[in-house]
């Protein structure tokens, strides 16, 4: 059976910039699944969504919706709804008329269109706003109304362009919950552009990463976090310490040596490497309890969920390592760091 959204060898131009754009994109999304597109600023995330929506012309390749090739069709014939980062509501309409809009343009009677609008407003828990004008809504309400309107169009594919960016924490939580509900309720294939891994993990079933001139990874969130395929992707995910060291191969065993000790690895060749390690994979041991070099904490930077320790060994070499925020290790203390797991990437 064909996937709801099937993208083959798609080329995406970067609008007005002189850069060439993305090439050779291949991915698919099933109904009720959500693909999060992660990428640095300017990596072409929004251009990709605009191309899928038909708001800009594809530079090659194909976009299929339930097996139907929509690459050359105008936006209104694709059954793909695109939601801008800031919800765009029609200011001359009430909330109810905004949500009924996709039914009205389809020729559905006004009464039926309004009934369906109210149903979606109820499902998004904003039915009480139906008579208000768009400019009388809060940020979270605008997002919910825009989502209700998008779903009232009964799309096969829903494209969300950084819907959680620039929202305060409470509104962000509210909209995130709404998106989770929408994913399950609508049955549409969703593509969510974000630069925030937490958002992707909360909503997405798969993650596509963009970098350079194409896609750099496509995997489930768990797979991607366990095994980022490259250092570039690991950096994009933004949850790893990057610890420099050297891989030494002794017969069938390879070992990664860094200033804090050694970690046994496999499948690596000798040479310089970077170990990507999450905060939860680092044990911090005070003093010299273990058979490992003792390191001095020279700096500690605290974050909400984790801290970054800068440590130095007796020879003066240093490294920065993410650890849990509850770890007790202030500047000046001596610690030993044990890496329970490390993803190694060779440096050529």
């Amino acid at each position: 059976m064909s996937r709801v959204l099937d993208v083959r060898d798609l080329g995406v131009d970067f609008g007005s910039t002189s850069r060439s754009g993305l090439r050779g994109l291949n991915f698919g999304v099933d109904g009720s699944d959500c693909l999060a597109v992660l990428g640095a600023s300017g990596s072409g995330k929004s251009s990709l969504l605009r191309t899928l929506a038909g708001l800009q012309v594809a530079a090659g390749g194909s976009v299929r919706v339930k097996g139907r090739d929509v690459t050359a069709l105008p936006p209104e014939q694709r059954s793909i709804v695109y939601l801008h980062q800031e919800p765009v509501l029609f200011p001359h309409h009430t909330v109810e008329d905004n949500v009924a809009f996709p039914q009205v343009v389809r020729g559905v009677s006004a009464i039926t269109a309004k009934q369906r609008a109210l149903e979606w407003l109820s499902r998004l828990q904003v039915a009480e706003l139906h008579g208000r004008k768009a400019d009388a809504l809060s940020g979270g309400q605008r997002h919910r109304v825009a989502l209700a309107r998008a779903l009232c169009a009964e799309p096969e594919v829903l494209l969300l362009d950084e819907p959680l960016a620039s929202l305060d924490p409470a509104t962000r939580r509210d909209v995130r919950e709404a998106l989770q509900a929408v994913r399950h309720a609508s049955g549409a294939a969703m593509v969510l552009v974000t630069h925030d891994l937490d958002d992707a993990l909360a909503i997405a079933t798969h993650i596509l990463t963009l970098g350079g001139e194409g896609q750099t990874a496509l995997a489930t969130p768990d797979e991607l976090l366990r095994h980022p395929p490259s250092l570039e992707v690991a950096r994009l995910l933004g949850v790893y310490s990057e610890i420099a060291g050297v891989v030494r191969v002794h017969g069938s065993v390879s070992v990664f040596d860094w200033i804090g000790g050694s970690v046994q690895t496999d499948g690596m060749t000798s040479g310089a490497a970077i170990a990507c390690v999450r905060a939860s994979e680092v044990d911090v041991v005070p003093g010299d309890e273990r058979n490992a070099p003792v390191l001095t904490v020279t700096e500690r930077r605290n974050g909400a969920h984790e801290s970054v320790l800068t440590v130095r060994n007796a020879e003066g070499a240093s490294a920065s390592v993410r650890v849990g925020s509850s770890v007790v290790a202030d500047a000046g203390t001596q610690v030993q760091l044990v890496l329970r797991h490390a993803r190694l990437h060779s440096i050529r």
Partner: protein
Amino acid sequence: MTRATSAIRAAVVLLLLVVVLAPLGILIVTSLSRAWFYPAVLPAALDHSAWSDLIFDPAHRAALLNSLVLGATTAVVATTLALPLGRSAALSTRLVRRSVALLAFTAVALPPVALGAGLQLTVLTLGLGGTITGVFLSHLVPALGYLTLVFLGVFTRWDLRLEETAATLGATGVARWRLVLLPLLRRPIVEALALGFLVSWAQVALTLLVGGGAVRTLPLDVLAMLQSGQDQRAAAGALALAIPALVVLGASRVAARQTAAVVA
């Protein structure tokens, strides 16, 4: 605010009222009095014959009708052309935008006599000299210039995401115009229609040069009456000329209230 500032503000408002309303008041009284000479403060007797002439005299009525037809046609045609022209220019490259703005501004800024001389030759070449069609075409040029500048400004600030949103929600091009663009553009369209009408309504030089005296309009009649010393009738005609401007002002305010604030 100090007492002195309040006094200055009141004085300025009063001065403005006098400057605007005094000529209007004098015109009203003059149009209703057969003879009103210095040093009489008010006319000896009221007389509405000038207004009756303006409405019932066939020659004046034809001039009034010409002015109305020319104004309405110019307004509708210029708005219909300027809206898509201003929109496509605003959404185009900077070079195109500036070129269109320059052309539009030239049509507006050229002295009417210079513009009229050029248009007269063009209209004569087309065989439309001395016809109402030729006069209409000549009125269209400055009106199109003004209105293109209006719509260029409107669409430079236009939020294209509204149309994109409507498109991905299933609205065809026609539906987008009918359900999104036109309702949101109600105010600028009403203002453009009004401005287009007024540009044509007040034209003297172009009408005279291109119409060659064969096409009579209300402003030409008022001018002729003034030159021949028919003060009472000239005053009535001048007031009739002012009425559309006041109506337009009112209509614009109503449209402004009914229009969403997207296109400010």
